[in-house]
């Protein structure tokens, strides 16, 4: 749709006036002062500072926009969390396998108790890192105002 704010009467408007004068019985009997009518309508120039109007509208709409952004962020966050949880079983299985190998190697060199202590400590560190990583995902998603598709692709890259 083409919207315009003409400074001069649009030609179509003039044609319409002329067509009306031709088809209307009353106007045929007494010709319309078409030019005067067009000029009078055209004089209705609007003096509004539209930019200021928009600025004030934007300020008034700010709380509503924030509500919308928050409402839109929740599904995005849940989706981000779900996506990030998808590879978790595989990662846990790989880490368990890795820790088992490390324990085998370390226990061959050190006493079993010390080896167990080291491997459990390392395992605990891994769990802590996992917890930190996963707790950061909601924060990252909530803070991001970018479209969901961007976040999905970024998560896919990270994971």
């Amino acid at each position, binding site marked *: 749709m083409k919207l315009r704010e003409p400074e001069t009467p649009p030609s179509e408007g003039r044609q319409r006036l002329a067509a009306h004068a031709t088809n209307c019985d009353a106007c045929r009997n007494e010709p319309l002062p078409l030019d005067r009518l067009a000029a009078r309508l055209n004089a209705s120039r609007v003096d509004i500072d539209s930019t200021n109007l928009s600025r004030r*509208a*934007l300020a008034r709409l700010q709380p509503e926009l924030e509500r919308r952004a928050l409402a839109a962020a929740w599904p995005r966050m849940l989706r981000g969390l779900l996506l990030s949880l998808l590879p978790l079983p595989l990662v846990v299985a790989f880490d368990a396998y890795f820790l088992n190998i490390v324990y085998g190697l370390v226990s061959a060199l050190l006493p079993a108790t010390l080896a167990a202590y080291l491997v459990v400590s390392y395992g605990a560190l891994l769990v802590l890192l996992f917890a930190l990583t996963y707790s950061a995902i909601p924060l990252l998603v909530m803070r991001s105002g970018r479209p969901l598709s961007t976040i999905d692709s970024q998560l896919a890259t990270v994971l």
Partner: protein
Amino acid sequence: MATDEELVSHVGHGDESALRELLRRYERPLSHFIHRSTAGRDVEDLYQETWLRVVRHATRFDRTKRFSTWLFQIAVNLCRDWHRRAPPEPIDVLPDTPSRDESARVDAAIDAQRLLARLPEPQREVVILRYYHDLTEEETARILDCPKGTVKSRLHHALAQLATLGRPAGSESS
């Protein structure tokens, strides 16, 4: 460049920059439409209310339709509600301190606004959308949610009435 329809879907998710762009694109036609529909009264309130409804219902916007049609439908409905609420008052849209150079143009503008204000509301809507915004009959019909034939007949009657109103006082009765 993003289309209006893409922008409005971002607005539904609270995207301020998308709303700013829509405001920039439509601030003139929309504010002028409201100004002409209400003879310059409560323009800011109606303008803000129109955009508030856009933001609130952006997620429900049917992207197969044109945003501009939807926007003007909202504005038309708000102006109709406004006309039902507010009784007509004399039009006093003079600036606070009009300069001497401007006074003739302001007089002419008031004169034109008086002409428009004396039209029945449905006819005034058609004249504003068809004449000032140069929309097609189909687009006007979609915005006003009426058949194309109704737009034609309203325009015909509006022009006849404007012609009568536009004649000098002495010849009005003839």
